[in-house]
Each structure stands twice: as structure tokens, then as C-alpha cells.
């Protein structure tokens, strides 16, 4: 089955890498594998898969 993908270049997801402490929570709570950890920092690897559920925004540790 083809993987279901929604529209491109529309989501409002933003990542401020300077604030990232590498807690990995964003990768743990994301239902669509939008972020990953590279060199102990979060990176967005599949931006268009984001459904803006807000789980990552609520769970990163400041």
C-alpha cells in the first residue's frame, strides 16, 4: 500500500536547534517520524509528514 501523504510545504512546524538539549522526547512522541536525533540534536527529517498535533512542542524540556 502506498503510504498516505498529505500536502507539501504547508505545516507550521518550527525547530529552534539552539534550544535543543537532545532530550529525544520529540522523536518519542511523534506519530509520523518527523524528527530524529543527529549528533545529540534534534533535526527535522520529514517535515511534510507533520500533522501539527503539538506533541513535540509540549514535551521538550526547556
Amino acid at each position, binding site marked *: 500500500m502506498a503510504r*498516505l501523504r498529505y500536502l507539501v510545504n504547508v505545516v507550521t512546524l518550527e525547530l529552534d536547534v539552539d534550544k535543543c538539549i537532545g532530550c529525544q522526547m520529540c522523536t518519542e512522541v511523534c506519530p509520523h*517520524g518527523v524528527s530524529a536525533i543527529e549528533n545529540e540534536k534534534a533535526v527535522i527529517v520529514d517535515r511534510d509528514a507533520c500533522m501539527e498535533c503539538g*506533541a513535540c512542542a509540549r*514535551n521538550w524540556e526547556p
Partner: protein
Amino acid sequence: MFEKISNSSFITQNGLDFHVVPTQLSLADQLGSWKARWAIGRMKYVVEQGVYVVGNPDSNSVVLVSANYKMSLDRLRSELTDLDAWILVIDTKGINVWCAAGKGTFGTDEIVQRIETVKLAEVVDHRRLVLPQLGAPGVSAHEVKRRSGFSVTYGPVRAEDLPAFLSAGMKATKEMHRVRFPLSARAVLIPVELVMGTKHIMLFAACFLLLAGLGRRGYSGSLVLSEGLAGVILIFAAYLAAIIGGPVLLPWLPGRSFSIKSLWIGLAAAAAIALYSFNISLFDDRFTLIAWLLIVPAICSFFVMNFTGTSTYTSLSGVKREMRIAVPLQLICAAVGLGLWLAGRFV
């Protein structure tokens, strides 16, 4: 009032209240789920919040957190065969975990308060909660920890992965973290959409039925029966094609936006109607035929687009973008179609 859980009991021990529940769902539990899927009593399919007991848990056993929508609790406990666990059911106003998390009712405040109310610290010695991953949009794990002392571990998306997650020492695989949208999950949405949508489509069809009586020679009851009934059948055919075809065929319909996906269903339905009408010369005039070729895709498009809300992968920004374009087009098609169809009454 709260839904009854088959073969459950309510006990009080040392001033703490517990609901003891089996992991086997009874026929009545399954019938309840089935009714909720058909939108029967779905908005009040609620169980009482509190501490639930599965198996023979002790003060070291895992605490799982769930919503007070009965289908959520049922789904969870039915996967806990041979396990000993506490389930903390929080008050999400009878809404499932993911939807409630989106609204914030499956949220930090409610969890922190519920821990207090049920005196969870007296039930278990450890200070750890396992939440369904889909609760995360409403919960700040670190804030729960700071305010209640209980740390939050997000479990798998699906309850069926819980036994594997627990036996792996609370480690979820990548696969357990991912939300999918398989045929089974899509098909299960059909009944509730049918029930919810039917009210609207009936109203729409009733308008056609009434207007069908209009004609050059005044209002005619026989026209209502012939033209009106034909219209009602076409409207319902388009509606059913969308409600059933949309979710079932979703991955195979070309396009990313739901309104484009729906177009294929609309065009297929319109083509079928056109072919059929040529065969039996259903419509005497071109106006009526063209009218239906506009109205049918508009209906399909509207109802398939509706599924963006129940799909598991659309973003609000995306839905807003596609609606900005699709809704005016749907309205224009429907309005022009209706105009032509009315004109067809008088030529």
C-alpha cells in the same frame, strides 16, 4: 450515568477505591462498541474515572493511564491478558485519548489532579506512569513530573503493543511509535460518517424532491415522483460512493488533498450516471444531465473532504489550505448545477 462494565466489581480497601475489571470483553462490551461505531449513544459512552485493577497488581506494578471513553478502556484492558496492572482512568469527558489530547482534556492538569484525587501515591510505591503515546499532544511529561512527582513514560500508540513494550523494559520500537491508517482503521469510520452525514443529505434530497414538482404547467405531483425520485437516487448514490469509496480507496486515489482524491470518485459516479442516462434516456434535456454532472462531484467532494477530520495524518494548516480552494468550488458546482437543474424544469 456511567456505562456498565461486564463482570467488573467496585471495591474499597484502606480508604482507596478500585474498579476490578476482566481482560476479556463480554458480548455486551462488544455490542456497546458496535453501537458507538454506529453513533448510538456515542457521546455518552463513558466509564467512571478512577483506579482500575487488572490481574493481581501490587505496589510495584505498572500504572497505565487511559481515557474515560469506554472504548478506550476496553481496548486497553483487552490487551492485558495475564498481566498485572493498575489503570488510571482520567476524566476526558468521554472522549478517546488522541482526540482528548488534541483538546487538552487528556492533559497535564487532569492527570495531576487525578493522581491526587485517587491517592495514587498510596496505591503504588514507585512514581512512574505509562501513558499512551497519543496522549502526548495534551501532556507535558516534565510538568507532570514537577507537579506530581510521577514521571511519565510514553508507551506505544496501540494498546496491542503494550505487552511487548512492557516485557522489553518499557522500550517502544520505532514501529510502535508510528500511527498508520490501514484499511481496517479506515473502514471502521464508515458507519459513524453514514449516520452523521445522512441527516444533511436527507435534507438536501428533500429539497430536490419538493422542487422537482415545478414545471411549465405549474406544480405537479407526478413530476415529484418521477424527476424527484430520480434526483434522490442520484444524490444518495453520490453520497454513498463518497462515504464508502473515500475511506476504502483513500491510498489509491491519486492526489494528496482529499478534495482531489474525491474528484475521482465524483467523476466516476458522474460518468456512470451519464452512461446510464444515455442508455435509458433518463433525461430529456441537456440541462438536467449537465446539472447532475456538476452536483454529483460536488457532493462526493464535500463528503470525502469531511474525512480529513478522522484521518490520522492531515494537518490543520493543510486542511485549511485545501478548504480555501475546494469549498468555494464545491459551492459553485452545486449552485450552478442546481440552477441548471431548475432551468431544466422549465424548458
